[in-house]
């Protein structure tokens, strides 16, 4: 049996549900976790859910614009992670911690 045929039997709605669930897992992680590195990973999970959805729609509609968008998202996510990790390293040097719950100097 051709392994492709499993994917051909899947409806587009399956992809929508899967990526919505992945997106919500990432969202839940961002709202509940306190470690900055884990927060970054949760945001990456949300972005990858978006990528999956774009590729699924793109292939379903036979339109290449969605796949083009995915390349841009991946490149920008890498740039963003680089800057974000640099910021987290800078903070770790000053406070010896990456717990975002400790950042309460600014309030009011």
């Amino acid at each position, binding site marked *: 049996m051709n392994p492709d045929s499993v994917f051909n039997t899947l409806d*587009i709605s399956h992809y*929508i549900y899967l*990526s919505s669930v992945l*997106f919500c897992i*990432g969202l839940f992680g*961002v709202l509940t976790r306190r470690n*900055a590195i884990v*927060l*970054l990973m949760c*945001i990456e999970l*949300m*972005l990858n*859910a*978006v990528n999956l*959805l*774009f590729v699924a*729609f793109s292939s379903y*509609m036979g*339109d290449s*614009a*969605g796949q*083009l*968008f995915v390349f*841009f*998202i991946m490149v*920008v996510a890498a*740039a*963003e992670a680089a*800057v*974000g990790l*640099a*910021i*987290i390293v*800078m*903070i770790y040097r*000053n*406070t010896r911690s990456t717990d*975002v719950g400790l*950042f309460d*100097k*600014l*309030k*009011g």
Partner: protein
Amino acid sequence: MTSLLILFLGAIVVLYYGINKPEGKSLLMTVILLLAALSSLVYDLLTVKNRNVLGWLTEYVPENMLIWNFNSIAFSIVLVLAFLLVLGLFSRNNYIGADLLGLMLFSVCGGMLMTSFSNLIMLFLGIECLSIPLYVLAGSKKSDLASNESAVKYFLMGAFSTAIFLMGCAFLYGGTGSLELESISRATSMITHLGIKSNLIFSGIILLMAGMLFKISAFPFHFWSPDVYDGSPNRTTVFMATVVKIAAFAAFYRLFNEGLGDVKNWWGVTLAVSAGATILFGNIAAIRQSSFKRMLAYSSVAHAGYMLMAILALPQNGFWALLVYLIAYTSSAVSVFYLLDRTSGENSNFSFDNFNGLGKQSKWLSLILIVSMFSMAGIPMTAGFAGKYGLFSSIITSYPWLLYAALIGSAISIAYYFRVFKHAFFSEDGTLVAWKIGTMEWIFLALSLTITLLVGCWPAVITLCK
């Protein structure tokens, strides 16, 4: 298009030239680049009807990515002008590390992509190109814990809201089958005419709106912005309050009013509720602040609420009202932030007491403080009044209850805007250290004062270029 290329190539040069050097020459280079970009934009604006604005670049640029029509060029001009004002007034520190200017230029390039996008890919790239340098700028005081905190908060919230925005793009792409603004507009208007309810498009629009509300810091997604504004270095804060806000509102306006205007009954009420809540919350929270900088941060949240009205208005009214309000807010905010920066001296205490005795020090600075505060509160004869009048009259028939919320908010705002006058003019124990004001600073202070008064007395001056 030429202006974008000038800024982008110039940013690379400034970035590499400036590493570990004081700002002197890089600042001059940046100002020259901005003037060149500004003149190119003005030329584009004057000739926009007669020719294809892409000009000699037509064959190299994919035409469905950026659009240079009257609206996008006008927003870009305001953007570049705001950056010029910021640089002119915040140049005294002569920081070591002139590469920060290069990062600011990249950020402005991102802002210009946001004002002139015609494809969601370009909007996304614009938002990121605007935000990523800003994360670095917010944390540019490396050993200051407040700056660190604001950088990490801004980064996490920015990346989070981008993910939500992208999910909206994906749903909208699935629902309409295209990423181009024009095709999306056509598809959504067809769907309305046929009376179909599309869940994909609806959830896409709601997610896009949530992402954009995060970016402009509107209720209920405003909680990050006072902390970020408070902790960032002063020049970065004023950059966020003016340049970033202009770019974000231009993008929001073009996406929702021009692109998705035909399905306003799907998102109009939600946005109106958010606008009303933003105005009331921003103004009430600003009253309680004892720090002047934090008060300005909350007042900027409230101003974002007023500007959301332009997105609910009919296209032409909304555009002019938004443009006037952006100019009014920028010209007054820049001079108020300048006074805040100078009165606080070298320390990072920004309480109202810093202004004690400003009235005795200089008559001209007092005039600038009074006019800017009047303009922010919306007193007649200043630009803020013209902007508020335009915004309020553009929604008066469609959302009258929002108008009541806005009027109550404006009344509250007078209380905290005028509180600084008590410190500046009626306080005896002045600890203020007089500072020397350079020629460049006088020129730019006079420029912002002139804009505030001119637009206030004669708002039609803005429409002359049409």
